[in-house]
């Protein structure tokens, strides 16, 4: 193994590092040196060992884990795994799926216009089955996903380029491990769900207020005073428990929103200690003169009252922003309350929220990539003009926190 590290492996691993960076894993030259040092020490005896070792070297944060596994899979096995979970409909938007579909149609495995012939679930299952088949038996076969299995790096290049595939290391094989996708729930592109709530919570903890500096730091005061030759120099800091208030407005109309309504509520309620106060209201599709303080939308609360809150209150809307255009823009547009033509359009209320609260943000469960061409694109774009919008992925939550913490 030692001579391998000296001669052949550099080109191999430099490409790999570049690929990792493309996948969003922040790999550095220093990591590459570390990897080489390990190879010289003879830690790696098989591709599976290399998988475990290089993952230790390159991956620091659990949110990069899935990207690493996919990159490894692509580079060393030529299998291109899409960045979505197995039950995620976002699969249809991936390059891997489109290529697979084209190949399947070209080879006659699936009829032309298969997309109309099959249920989405069925098509999704077929895709993942092909992928798994490929992972189990990754030699030959005509069902490869991607360029007929030939990644630009070539899976047969393993041996030539220096990593010998030999010996059983008592470990589970790297491909098996990757196939489990254990870390996908933590990936930044992932939808918020129970498993990665913790990750989201970590980001949420950065949500802080810029309150007054009214806490005297005695130690620093003494230090600075002595430096100042005895002239008293008072050092004030912000109270660590500096608290902010949050109003959460959740769209819980329609089945599509139900799981997201619950998860957002959990997310914010876990942080209730950090907030001075937090109120949750519910609405259907969009906000009019009334919102509701209970999940079943029976106890009404005037929107006007929320609008009178302190200006630095953080307002978070959660909703898919998808509705009929008149619900948003027409007088008396609400489909649930019957205010008639006297009822102000929703846009009026949303506009007032945006004017009053600088820190207001809209969380949308629809993935960012689909915003321009989703069914509700019209109203979604309208609302986006009012509010900073993020999707409900871990990355989106981070974006929201950054936006809400801005001065």
């Amino acid at each position: 193994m030692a001579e391998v590290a000296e001669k052949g492996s550099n080109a191999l691993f430099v490409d790999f590092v570049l690929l990792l960076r493309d996948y969003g894993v922040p790999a550095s030259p220093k990591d590459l040196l570390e990897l080489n040092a390990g190879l010289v020490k003879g830690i790696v005896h098989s591709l599976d060992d290399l998988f475990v070792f290089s993952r230790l070297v390159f991956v620091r944060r659990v949110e990069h884990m899935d990207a690493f596994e996919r990159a490894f899979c692509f580079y060393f096995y030529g299998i291109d795994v899409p960045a979505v979970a197995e039950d995620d409909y976002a699969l249809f938007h991936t390059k891997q799926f489109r290529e697979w579909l084209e190949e399947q149609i070209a080879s006659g495995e699936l009829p032309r216009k298969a997309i109309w012939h099959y249920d989405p679930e069925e098509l999704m299952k077929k895709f993942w089955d092909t992928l798994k088949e490929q992972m189990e038996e990754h030699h030959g076969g005509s069902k490869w996903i991607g360029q007929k299995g030939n990644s630009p790096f070539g899976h047969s290049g393993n041996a030539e380029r220096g990593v010998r595939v030999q010996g059983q290391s008592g470990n589970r094989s790297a491909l098996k491990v990757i196939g489990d996708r254990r870390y996908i729930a933590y990936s930044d592109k992932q939808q918020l769900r129970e498993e990665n709530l913790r990750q989201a919570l970590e980001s949420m903890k950065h949500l802080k207020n810029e309150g007054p500096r009214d806490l005297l730091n005695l130690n620093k005061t003494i230090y600075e005073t002595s430096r100042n030759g005895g002239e008293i120099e008072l050092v004030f800091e912000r109270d660590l428990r500096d608290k902010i208030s949050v109003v959460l407005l959740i769209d819980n109309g329609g089945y599509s929103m139900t799981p997201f309504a619950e998860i957002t509520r959990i997310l914010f309620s876990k942080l209730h200690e950090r907030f001075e106060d937090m109120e949750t209201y519910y609405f259907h599709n969009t906000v009019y003169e009334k919102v509701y303080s209970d999940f079943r939308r029976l106890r009404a609360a005037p929107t006007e009252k929320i609008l009178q809150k302190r200006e630095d209150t953080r307002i978070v809307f959660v909703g898919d922003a998808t509705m009929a255009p008149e619900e948003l823009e027409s007088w008396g547009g609400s489909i649930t309350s019957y205010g008639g033509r006297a009822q102000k359009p929703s846009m009026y209320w949303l506009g007032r929220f945006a004017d009053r609260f600088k820190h207001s943000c809209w969380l949308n469960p629809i993935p960012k990539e689909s915003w321009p061409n989703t069914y509700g694109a019209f109203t979604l774009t309208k609302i986006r003009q009012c509010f900073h919008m993020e999707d409900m992925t871990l990355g989106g939550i981070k974006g929201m926190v950054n936006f809400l913490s801005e001065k």
Partner: protein
Amino acid sequence: MQEYTFDGTDEYYLDPELKSIVNIALAMEKPLLLTGEAGTGKTQLALQVASALKMKSYIMRCKSTIKGEEACYTQDTVLRLNDARFGPADTGRVVDRFYDYVIWGPIGQAFRADEKVMLLLDEIDKTESDVQDNLLDILEECQFTIREVNETIKARIRPAIFITSNAKRELSDPFLRRCYCHHIAFPSPEDMRQIVDLHYPKTNAKLLEAAIAIFYELRERGFEKPPATSELLNWIGALERTGGIPDPKLPPLTGILLKRAGDIQRYRSKGGAGGRSY
């Protein structure tokens, strides 16, 4: 150089992947940072490695008040002042000798050891981030300086360093860069069976199966504090004592599994498994 290989112990179930990770970290002499939910056995792992490889262990249990320096050493100025004023009597201390008044912290002790030892920094995320930054170079170079006398203490043999984090706070990038990081996922039901087996080898298999099934079912319900491994182990212990296989519809002694008042109320109002309401 002596090689250290860890193979697990009969008290600790070691996932094969985790095993190779531990061994790589030992071979590369890098600190291993273990993250993961409470109850996934992070601290246990470090202690088991130490006991299996017959290393002495030095443990620093982090607190938010810790400043970093006291993990290396502290100087007992009060004692020295006292000795200077009233004499050290027959304690053998000499007021002029600085080192007589140094109290070594866990890092200091580990670096001064004559053999390979294990150093565990438990729950590092509880410390402030500047403390972590202070520890960076100390851990990387395995040395620190005693400011008062400007002398450097350097480890002759790099200790095996383990760091655990509950991810209460995110650790800084430079800190992560100096460690190998591994996130221990929550054990799957199969792994859990092995773990329970190690602790309760003689328990009725039916009871275990039922208990594990109920346990995972409860975990999936999204409680504020979902039950973890240690709670399951305690619960099985308690079930053993009361006897009888738990009824999935109305599991007994749930107070061992659920701790938060809110969770217990939610559990009661939603009823037993299957979402029945009572």
